[in-house]
C-alpha cells in the first residue's frame, strides 16, 4: 500500500531535478503564505466579492494584467535559463530533456499566457472607456473568458512540478507530440491548458466584436472610432476565425493520443502534415492577433504625445483590415522547405510579402503623426519611438524570410529566432508595455514613476539589441534553433555569450519595472485630473480610476478625437452643452459561476491529462450544472440609483478639484 502510494507520487510529482525541487518548495511556501495572509486579515470574503465574482470589465482587465506579468516572469526565467545554457559551448547546466521542456514552455507561456492576457487586459480596460460604453456586451461571458484563461494557464503551469512539462516544441508537431514519441502526460497538459484558455480567447473575441459594434456612444460612427478600438476590432475578427481552427486541431491531436485515432499518425492513413498546416492556419494569424492591438496603442500614443491628430486615419483602418484578411493566406511560409513544389511556395511567398505593404504604410503614418508635432518624451512615447526602428528592422528580416528559396537557408535557424523575437518583443511586448504605462493612471489613479521607467526602458532596449542581433549572425552561420548545446569548434561561443549578456540586461529591465510599480504604489501620487497626459479620446474625460459605471451620462460624440475637440472648444470659451439629467444606471450583478465553472474545467482537463475519467466526467457534469444554473438565474442585474451616481461623481470630481 505504502509502496504503491510512493510509486504514484514519484510519477505524479516531478522529482530528481534540483531546479524543479526549488520551484516546488517555493510554490508550496507561497501557497501557505497566501492562505495564511488571506485568513489572518480575514480577506476571503473580500477576495470573493470584489474579485473572484466580479463582472466589472476594469477589474477583469486588472486581473488579466497581473497574471500576464507573473507569466512574463516565469517565461523570462525560462529564457534566462536557456540563455545560460547556451552562453558557452558544451555547457553542462541543463540536460537535453530539461532544455527541451524549457523552450517548449517558454514559447507557449510567452505567446499564450503572457502576450494574449496582457492584450486582453488592455482590451478590457480601455475599449469600453474609449467607446463611451458602460460595460462590454456580455459581462458574464467576459468573466468566464478570464477564468477559463486563468485555469487553463494554471493547468499548463502545474505540469512542470506535477507530471512533467511538454517537450515537443510550442506548436507540438506530430508525430513527436504523438503517444509513441511523447508518452508522458506533459503533452496532455499542453493540449488541455491551451484548449481551455483558447475557448476563453474565442469568447473574448466575440464579446469585443459585439461590444464595438453595438455599444458605441451616440454619434461615434465606425469612422470616428479611436484607432486602438479599431485595432481591437481587427484583432478580434482574426480571433473568431483562427481560434476555432486551433480548438479542432488540438481536439484531434488529443483523440489521437487518448483514443488511438489516426488523424495525424502515419499508420492507418493519417497525416502529420495535415497538423502542420492546421496549426499554422491558426499560428500565423495568431501573431497578427497580438501585434495589431500594439499598432493601435502606438497610434494613440503617437497622437497624444505629439499633440497632433493621427495622420492618415483612413489608411490606418484600411491597412489594419487588409492585414487581418491577408494573415489567413500566408501560413505555408512556415514550411517552405516541406517540398510543396514551386507553385505553392511562390504563392505563399508573394502573399507574405504583400503584408509588408500595409505594415509599411502604418510606419509612415506614425512618422507623419510626429512630423510637425510637439513630441514629449514620456515613457509611453519612448517605447513608441524605440518601437519604430526595432519593428522596421524586424519587419525587414521578415521580408527576407519570405523569399522562399532564401528561406531554405534561414528556416529553423537562429536567424528566425532573432526575427520573431524582434517583432514579438520589439512590436508586441514593447507595445503592450507602452500601453500599460499609458493607461496605468486610468486603471489605478496614479502614474508610474517616470525615472525608474526610463531605466527600465534603456535596459530593455539596449539589452534587446545585444541579445538578438548576434543571433542573426549565428543563424547565418548554421546554428539551428532548439539545440541545447554545441561544439567548441563551431565558433558560435562568443556571439552566444554576447547574446546571453543581452538577455540578462533585459532581465534587469524587468526588475526595474517591478521596482517601478512597487515604488509608485508606495508613493501613490494621486492623479486628480483624470487626464494626466492631456489625452484625446473619451477614456480621459472621466475620473481615474473610472467609477463602476464608467460614464455618469453617455457622451455625445462628434469627432474622431472627441475629448480633445471638447477641450479645444472649452479653451476657446465655447460652453459645452448642458449635461442631460442623471438616470439610474443598469448594471450586471456579480456571479460566482464563471469562477466555479472554469475551475471545474480545470478538473476536466486534469482528469483527461491523467486519463482519470472518474475525475473528468463528474467535473464535466458540474460544468453542465453551472450552465443550467445560469440558464435559470433571472436576478442578474440591478440599477444604480441616481442618488448614488451623484454621490460617486461628487466624490470623484471633488477629488478632482
Amino acid at each position, binding site marked *: 500500500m505504502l509502496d504503491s502510494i510512493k510509486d504514484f507520487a514519484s510519477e505524479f510529482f516531478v522529482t530528481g531535478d534540483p531546479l524543479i525541487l526549488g520551484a516546488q518548495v517555493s510554490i508550496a511556501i507561497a501557497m501557505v503564505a497566501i492562505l495564511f495572509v488571506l485568513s489572518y486579515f480575514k480577506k476571503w470574503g473580500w477576495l470573493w466579492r470584489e474579485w473572484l465574482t466580479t463582472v466589472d470589465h476594469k477589474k477583469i482587465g486588472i486581473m488579466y494584467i497581473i497574471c500576464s506579468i507573473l507569466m512574463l516572469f516565469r517565461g523570462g526565467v525560462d529564457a534566462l535559463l536557456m540563455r545560460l545554457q547556451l552562453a558557452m559551448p558544451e555547457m553542462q547546466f541543463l540536460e537535453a530533456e530539461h532544455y527541451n521542456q524549457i523552450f517548449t514552455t517558454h514559447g507557449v507561456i510567452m505567446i499564450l499566457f503572457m502576450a494574449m492576457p496582457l492584450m486582453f487586459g488592455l482590451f478590457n480596460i480601455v475599449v469600453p472607456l474609449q467607446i463611451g460604453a458602460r460595460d462590454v456586451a456580455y459581462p458574464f461571458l467576459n468573466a468566464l473568458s478570464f477564468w477559463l484563461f486563468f485555469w487553463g494557464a494554471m493547468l499548463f503551469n502545474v505540469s512542470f512540478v506535477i507530471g512533467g512539462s511538454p517537450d515537443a516544441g510550442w506548436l507540438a508537431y506530430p508525430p513527436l507530440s504523438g503517444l509513441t514519441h511523447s508518452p508522458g502526460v506533459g503533452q496532455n497538459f499542453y493540449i488541455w491548458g491551451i484548449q481551455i484558455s483558447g475557448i476563453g480567447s474565442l469568447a473574448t473575441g466575440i464579446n469585443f466584436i459585439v461590444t464595438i459594434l453595438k455599444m458605441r456612444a451616440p454619434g461615434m460612427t465606425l469612422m470616428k472610432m479611436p484607432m486602438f478600438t479599431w485595432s481591437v476590432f481587427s484583432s478580434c475578427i482574426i480571433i473568431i476565425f483562427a481560434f476555432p481552427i486551433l480548438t479542432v486541431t488540438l481536439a484531434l491531436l488529443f483523440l489521437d493520443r487518448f483514443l488511438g485515432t489516426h488523424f495525424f499518425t502515419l499508420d492507418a492513413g493519417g497525416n502529420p502534415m495535415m497538423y502542420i498546416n492546421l496549426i499554422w492556419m491558426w499560428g500565423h494569424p495568431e501573431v497578427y492577433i497580438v501585434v495589431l492591438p500594439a499598432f493601435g496603442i502606438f497610434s494613440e500614443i503617437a497622437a497624444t504625445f505629439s499633440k497632433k491628430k493621427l495622420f492618415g486615419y483612413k489608411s490606418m483602418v484600411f491597412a489594419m483590415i487588409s492585414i487581418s484578411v491577408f494573415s489567413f493566406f500566408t501560413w505555408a511560409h512556415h514550411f517552405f522547405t516541406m517540398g510543396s513544389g514551386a507553385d505553392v511556395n511562390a504563392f505563399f511567398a508573394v502573399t507574405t510579402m504583400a503584408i509588408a505593404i500595409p505594415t509599411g504604410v502604418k510606419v509612415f503614418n506614425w512618422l507623419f503623426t510626429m512630423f510637425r508635432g510637439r513630441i514629449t518624451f514620456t515613457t509611453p512615447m519612448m517605447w513608441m519611438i524605440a518601437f519604430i526602428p526595432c519593428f522596421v528592422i524586424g519587419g*525587414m528580416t521578415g521580408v527576407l524570410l519570405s523569399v522562399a528559396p532564401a528561406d531554405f537557408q534561414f528556416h529553423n535557424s537562429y536567424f528566425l529566432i532573432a526575427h520573431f523575437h524582434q517583432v514579438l518583443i520589439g512590436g508586441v511586448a514593447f507595445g503592450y508595455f507602452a500601453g500599460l504605462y499609458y493607461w496605468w493612471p486610468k486603471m489605478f489613479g496614479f502614474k508610474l514613476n517616470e525615472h525608474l521607467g526610463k531605466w527600465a526602458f534603456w535596459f530593455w532596449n539596449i539589452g534587446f539589441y545585444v541579445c538578438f542581433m548576434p543571433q542573426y549572425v549565428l543563424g547565418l552561420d548554421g546554428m539551428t534553433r532548439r539545440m541545447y548545446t554545441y561544439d567548441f569548434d563551431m565558433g558560435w561561443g562568443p556571439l552566444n555569450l554576447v547574446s546571453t549578456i543581452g538577455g540578462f540586461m533585459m532581465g534587469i529591465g524587468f526588475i526595474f519595472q517591478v521596482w517601478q510599480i512597487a515604488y509608485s504604489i508606495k508613493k501613490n501620487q494621486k492623479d486628480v485630473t483624470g487626464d494626466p497626459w492631456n489625452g484625446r479620446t473619451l477614456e480621459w474625460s472621466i475620473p481615474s480610476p473610472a467609477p463602476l459605471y464608467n460614464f455618469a451620462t453617455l457622451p455625445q460624440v462628434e469627432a474622431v478625437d472627441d475629448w480633445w475637440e471638447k477641450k479645444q472648444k472649452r479653451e476657446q470659451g465655447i460652453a459645452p452643452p448642458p449635461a442631460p439629467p442623471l438616470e439610474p444606471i443598469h448594471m450586471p450583478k456579480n456571479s460566482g459561476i464563471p469562477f466555479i465553472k472554469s475551475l471545474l474545467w480545470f478538473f476536466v482537463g486534469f482528469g483527461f491529462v491523467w486519463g482519470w475519467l472518474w475525475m473528468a466526467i463528474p467535473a464535466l457534469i458540474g460544468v453542465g450544472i453551472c450552465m443550467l444554473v445560469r440558464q435559470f438565474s433571472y436576478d442578474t442585474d440591478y440599477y444604480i440609483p441616481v442618488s448614488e451616481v451623484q454621490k460617486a461623481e461628487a466624490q470623484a470630481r471633488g477629488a478632482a478639484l
Partner: protein
Amino acid sequence: MKSRKKVRRFIVPLLFVSILVLLSGCSESIRVLDPKGPIGESQKDLILISSLLCAIILVPVLALTAFIVYRYRDKPGNKAAYKPNWSHSTLMETIWWGIPVVIITILAIVTVKGTYDLEPSKPLDSEKKPLVIQATSLDWKWLFKYPEQGIATVNYIEIPEDVPIRFELTSDAPMNSFWIPELGGQMYTMSGMAMKLHLQADEPGEYYGSGANFSGEHFADMKFTVRATSEAEFNKWVESVKQTSPALTEEGYQQLAKPGKADVQYFSSFPEGLFERIVTKYVVEGDEGHAGHRQMTTEESPSSEPEQPKSDMSHEHAGH
C-alpha cells in the same frame, strides 16, 4: 545630468554600428554567406538582393525617424512648424503606398523566379551524372546510403567535388530537416515519403551538416560532417569502406533505428531496398497512401532498385 542624457543618446546608435561592423567583419567565415556550391551561391545572391531591396526602405525610414524625433521634440524655443490638425495628404499617402508596392513587386518577381529556378527537386545543370545519396533521419542520427556504391554511413558523408548530388530524404523517426549550410538550403525529412534535394560542392573541404528541425531529446547531436574530395579520392574512399567495414544487416538497422546517439560508422553494404521499405512502411495495401510530394515523379523515382514498384512513391497528397 545633461551630459548623461547625451551619452545615452549615443549609446544606441553606437551599439548598432558596432554590431554592423561585427557583422561585416566576419562575413568571410559565416557559413551561409560563404557558400561552396552553386545552390548556396544562388541563395546567397538572393539574400543579398532582397536585403538590398529592403534597405532601400529601411535606411531612409531610420534616418527619417531620427530626424523627426529630433526636429519636433517639445522644447522651448523649437522653431519647427507645429500643425496639430494636419492629418491628411493624398499626395504623401500615395507616395508611401506606392513605394512599398513597387519594391515588393520587384522582390516578388525575383522571388518567384528564384523559387522555380531553385526548386530543390530540380536536377542541377551538369555534364556529370548525379551521385545519389539516400539520407534517413533516425532518432538521433543520420543514416546515409549510397545505392550505386552499395555502401552506407552514419553521421558522415563523403562526396566528390563538382559532381551534382541527388539527396533522397526520408525519416524513420519524427520529422527532421537535412541542412548543409555551406552547400545550400535545407529540406524536411518526413516518414512515408521521399523528398529530393540537389546540391553540389565546388571545392574540396569539410562542411558542417545537421538536422534543423527539432525531433526530440538528442536532436542537437544530429550533426554530420560532409567531406568533399576529388573523384579519385572519393572512389578510393568507397573502396576502402567496402574492404574494411562491416555490413549493415537488417537487425543492425533495427538496432540503429532505436532512439539513442551514435558515432560515425561505415558499412560495406546494406540490405537491399532498405530505403524504399522505410519510405513505403506506412502505405496501406490498396490505398493511394500518404506519401511523396510532387518531387517524386515516376520517371525519376528512386534509383537502382528495379524491383521496387515505382508508383508506390509517386502519389500526391492533399495538405501541401
